[in-house]
């Protein structure tokens, strides 16, 4: 290795060690902001020490020890003499003499627990959803403020402030940094899963910016889900989320056409789907289902994604199975959009009349001005041969759509109704 490579190597090692380091320090000082600073200081120390001493055999343990020593100095200097901090200080002093091996052993035991606890803290419900996302990307994902700002098209200052505020809120809350148990664990876990899926979705169908997808965010969400599944392999919903993001990400390359527009699932070139990710997704889903219990929203959504992933061609799709999964999903994730998709699945499985019956069950007020509703109804009516009604629905949908291309598509379908009616008229008049 040449000398000039060394800082880069140290930086890479730090990137690999950073999250474990922060997780360990956060539990010790019970402050994510301080933990991050301490980790950063340890990195700076390594940058000046390692060129002299060489890279230690276990760089993670070295960085951890350096950061802990610094934490003790800091706590002493701040004269935090209240009982709690005195205790922490005593613990630290003792630990400090125990050498790398002991720290290393402790790290191996605790590291999973510490990392899990850090993830739970970053996704804590006392933070706003935006703050949870930013803090998770910063602390667990290791993205810089600039990278997060670029991904969300926000200014760096906005993101930096969001993260600072989030850290302050967590600091004031005086959290225990223990992994939550029992009932609280389930509630907190659903927040963690929601944050990861939010990150994924922003990457999968970017709501803003120059590209339709932001694969960086998808990759980060996948990595988070993989880490989480590694740390807590007995949680079916974590495996469900992992399966869902792996299978959805398998379509990233096939989702956008040459014209830059999104391609509907049934029209995608399935040859471009990433088979490795599909395989990983199906494996994770299988593991979730083996664990048993009533399937939650992520397992069910993954099961839906899996139905599409398993079909070699669009016409091979098992719509009856999809319809059955939607019947379950609407109970654990009630939403008029789920009901709309359920109606579409039933129409594909059991014919347009079945779809129409289910659409009639949806309270129209909940999806008022939502173009996909009349668009779906128009499609069912068209397939049922009720052309004048279908045309009316397509026209209504077009008037509700904010997207020019979508509007053009819906008007074209309305036009197709008119043409089909004219053909019938000509056939009937001799």
């Amino acid at each position, binding site marked *: 290795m040449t000398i000039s490579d060394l800082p*880069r*190597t140290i930086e*890479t*090692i730090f*990137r*690999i060690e950073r999250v474990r380091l922060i997780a360990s320090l956060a539990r010790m000082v019970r402050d994510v902001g301080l933990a991050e600073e301490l980790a950063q200081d340890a990195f700076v120390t390594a940058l000046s020490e390692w060129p002299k001493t060489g890279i230690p055999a276990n760089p993670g343990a070295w960085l951890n020890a350096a950061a802990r020593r610094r934490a003790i100095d800091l706590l002493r200097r701040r004269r935090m003499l209240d009982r709690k901090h005195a205790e922490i200080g005593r613990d630290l002093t003792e630990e400090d003499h125990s050498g790398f091996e002991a720290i290393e052993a402790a790290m191996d035991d605790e*590291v*999973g627990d510490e*990392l899990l606890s850090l993830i739970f803290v970053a996704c804590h419900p006392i933070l706003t959803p935006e703050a949870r996302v930013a803090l998770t990307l910063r602390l667990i994902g290791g993205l810089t403020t600039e990278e997060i700002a670029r991904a969300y098209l926000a200014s760096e200052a906005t993101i930096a402030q969001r993260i600072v505020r989030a850290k302050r809120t967590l600091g004031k809350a005086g959290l225990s940094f223990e992994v939550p148990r029992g009932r609280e664990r389930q509630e907190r876990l659903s927040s963690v899963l929601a944050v990861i899926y939010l990150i994924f979705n922003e990457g999968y*169908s*970017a*709501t*803003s*910016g*120059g*590209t*339709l997808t932001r*694969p960086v965010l998808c*990759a980060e969400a*996948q*990595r*988070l*889900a*993989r*880490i989480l599944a*590694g*740390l807590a392999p007995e949680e079916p919903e974590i495996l469900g989320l992992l399966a869902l993001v792996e299978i959805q990400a398998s379509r990233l*390359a096939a989702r*956008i056409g040459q*014209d*830059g*527009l*999104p391609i509907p699932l049934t029209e995608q070139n399935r040859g471009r789907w990433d088979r*490795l990710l599909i*395989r*990983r997704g199906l494996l994770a889903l299988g593991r979730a289902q083996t664990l048993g219990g009533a399937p939650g929203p992520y397992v069910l959504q993954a099961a839906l994604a899996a139905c599409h992933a398993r079909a070699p061609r669009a016409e091979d799709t098992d719509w009856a199975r999809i319809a059955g999964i939607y019947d379950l999903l609407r109970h654990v994730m009630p939403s008029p959009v789920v009901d709309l998709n359920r109606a579409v699945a039933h129409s594909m499985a059991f014919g347009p009349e079945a779809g129409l019956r289910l659409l009639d069950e949806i309270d129209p007020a909940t999806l008022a001005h*939502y*173009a996909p509703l009349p668009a779906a109804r128009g499609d069912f009516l068209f397939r049922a041969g009720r052309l004048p009604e279908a045309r009316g629905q397509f026209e209504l949908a077009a008037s*509700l*759509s*904010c*997207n*020019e*291309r*979508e509007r053009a598509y819906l008007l074209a379908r309305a036009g197709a109704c008119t043409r089909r009616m004219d053909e019938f008229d000509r056939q009937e008049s001799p």
Partner: protein
Amino acid sequence: MRVMVLVKATEDSEAGLKPSAELTEMFEAMGRFNEELVNAGILLAGDGLKPSSEGKRVAFDGPGRTVTDGPFAETRELVAGFWIWEVKDMAEAVEWVKRCPNPMPGPSEIEIRPFYELADFGDVVTPELAERENQLRARVSGQ
């Protein structure tokens, strides 16, 4: 980025695995390493391959296809196992490989090869794409 990490064959791996205390120890060390890869969220797939004596080669020359049975001579160029990792960059892959326990009883080599990715096939973000993106944004905000 996705990389394939190739464990190159040695005379030992080509001779086939024979149960030994050393081998058990190596498997355990490799198991711990794999667990680290899983916990870091980078391991996508991986497996070991049997010696080339169990392999076959198909040579192509125009329309001709010639099948050769293993073993193959150039041991150092053969592959004994592989991983597929998702890492930020090559530097990260190199650091992880350095942490891997020696996969062979004697001196051995691991090679890292990046996959081709979408971005390698030209910049897909054209001004037209940006314009369509604006339309999509309008559609999304209209929902």
